[in-house]
């Protein structure tokens, strides 16, 4: 320890620039959101205190439940597929293929685009009458598909877009995890006559499990917060069947001017994500230690 230095004091001083921003733009809005959720407030007029009314309304709001269900559908569709896709991509780029450099770039490339660009692009590709997907289908003698306008397909189409867009990020995480596994393990397995599939199953998958847990938690949180892709691609349609919770929160707050109600729903979403994360962390974390 350098004389005259006080670790705690210096620590606080050095983290102050971050702390100030964090308090002002994260913690304060978070708390003020909770505060607002007990009020009826249209942003412009004076707020009136309504206690737990907003939360009470919420549990009898059919639109809240349906939006939550649509969000859950999206989470269930995207989480496993994105994990598997990211893992397979990572396997491909850490293998011995001469194309692995090219593949790494190709796989990660979509991730650099903004949400709006990706969503607009795919909305055009999937357009029912003029989109290139359906043109191809028609040319090979198939019936065109209502990618975004059929309630059974619309969410899958958004999920597919999300897969193309963000799988590259999981690939990077898994790639880093795979590269940390010592080469000797694979070598000794190979000497013992293990096939590629066997070494993936018995070496790679168990040894990247901490990365898998990380990816899973990040993915679930990201998927629960889905909004942009849905909003741009389907607008929540057809007839509200892809309206996700964050979209409903946004509309309630900024279109219908029910700020308190909107904040209350945000807190429910927050609690759900918190619970899922804690559950995962404890369940999967315990397994890893055992």
């Amino acid at each position: 320890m350098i004389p005259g230095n006080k670790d705690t004091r210096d620590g606080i001083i050095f983290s102050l620039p971050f702390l100030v921003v964090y308090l002002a733009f994260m913690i304060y809005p978070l708390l003020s959101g909770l505060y607002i959720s007990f009020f009826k407030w249209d942003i412009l007029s004076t707020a009136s205190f309504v206690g737990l009314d907003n939360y009470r309304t919420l549990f009898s709001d059919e639109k809240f439940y349906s939006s939550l269900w649509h969000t859950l559908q999206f989470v269930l569709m995207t989480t496993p597929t994105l994990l598997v896709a990211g893992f397979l991509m990572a396997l491909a780029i850490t293998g011995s293929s001469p194309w692995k450099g090219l593949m790494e770039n190709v796989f990660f490339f979509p991730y650099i685009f903004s949400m709006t660009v990706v969503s607009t692009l795919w909305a055009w590709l999937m357009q029912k009458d003029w989109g290139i997907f359906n043109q191809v289908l028609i040319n090979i003698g198939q019936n065109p598909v209502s990618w975004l306008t059929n309630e059974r397909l619309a969410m899958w189409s958004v999920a597919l877009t999300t897969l193309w867009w963000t799988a590259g990020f999981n690939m990077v995480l898994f790639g880093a995890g795979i590269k940390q596994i010592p080469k000797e393990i694979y070598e000794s397995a190979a000497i013992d006559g293990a096939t590629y599939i066997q070494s993936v199953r018995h070496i790679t998958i168990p040894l990247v499990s901490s990365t898998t847990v990380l990816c899973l938690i990040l993915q679930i949180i990201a998927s629960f917060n889905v909004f942009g892709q849905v909003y741009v691609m389907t607008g929540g349609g057809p007839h509200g069947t892809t309206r996700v919770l964050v979209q409903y929160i946004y509309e309630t707050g900024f279109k219908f001017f029910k700020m308190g109600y909107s904040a209350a729903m945000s807190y429910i979403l927050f609690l759900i994500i918190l619970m899922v994360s804690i559950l995962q962390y404890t369940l999967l974390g315990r397994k890893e230690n055992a």
Partner: protein
Amino acid sequence: MKKQILLVVLAAILASGMLFAQAAPETKAEGPIEITFWSLFTGGDGEFFDAMVKEFNASQSEIVMKNDMVKFDNYYTKLTTALAAKTAPDVVVVHQGNLLNYVPSGSLLALDSYVDATTLADFQQAPLDACRFDGKLFSLPFDVHPIVMYYNKDLMAKAGITKVPQSAQEFIEASQKVKQATGKWGTAIDNTTGVYKAYTLARLFMSMIAQQGGSLLNADATAPAFNNAYGEAALKWLQDLVHVYKVNPTELDYDAAMNTFKLGEAAFYFNGVWATGTLEQTAGLNFGAAPLPPIMGGEAAWAGSHTLAIPVQKNQDPKRVEAAMTFINWMTSHGEMWAKAGHIPTRKSVAQKSEMKALPYRADYAAAAAFALPTPRTAAWEEIYGTLSDKLEFAVTKNQNPKAALADMEQTVKNIIASY
């Protein structure tokens, strides 16, 4: 030590002096006043609007108007937060139907003392009255944009239709003729959410109920009034075009409907007058425009209206308000430039201008402004409008039993109104 304190105080005085010195010329100077503006116009509308602002700036030397475009999707979000913080620009565009979100909280300036009687008398009565709340004027109407009908003349000729259809029955017959003779669609009414909700369904539904003498909501906008024979007739017609007569595509979103008509794939198309600008630029499209026909008997059409308003500021500078009023006055009295975007101007003097009369199509539907339906006055309107669009989308694309659909919609609207 004392010297140091003195120095600091001196420096502070100097600094504040400089601050005031900097602020001073702005209010005192003889140069032009710079005022700011937010508009929500994009695409064709945006180009015409920008051209008008440019012309306004060139036409005089006292005021410089700076136009800061906000993407339409985020416009009201940005406006609302700016109004709450009292940092909104000097002039803003607000749809007449959205005024009710801002007037009760006192976010907009009452304009009565800034407009003289002659100017007021030049405005058409109905759109002007729509900007009054409790007798006070909170904005001036820039345009009226009702839903109108566009028809493809070539397709009609090929199908041997000589008269533009008017009644529900005539539409069905004409559409069937078009389909038989050309294989194209009769009508292109969008019925599925895409970039936009299926608002066209809600607009037509509202219009057709009014055409029968009914009204979507009751007179004071406190309860739904569409679960009756009027609503059923309107909904049934919209459904039958798709499912019984099969002359309107299903799963058709807003952009697709526009493209269907642009490509000459449908004979009759319903949209707001803003479509005119795009349609007339479409090469090879031989079309006509007309006010919304009396499909259900009477004359009535959903309409929106862009209005120009002045936000209340922390320190309202009377000079800036005056400049803003000059701008608003200039913009509304040059409505013939705005009419290029398709919209119907609101000032009587504009209607008389030869430039206005020379514009094609506009004259054909200008009469529609006379039977434009005002937006119901309830804070719940935005939610009702969006929710009805979703419900109508379901009812039309799924051919839901109209009675069941109307009952469900009625209950939903009641719940929405109760939640405000």
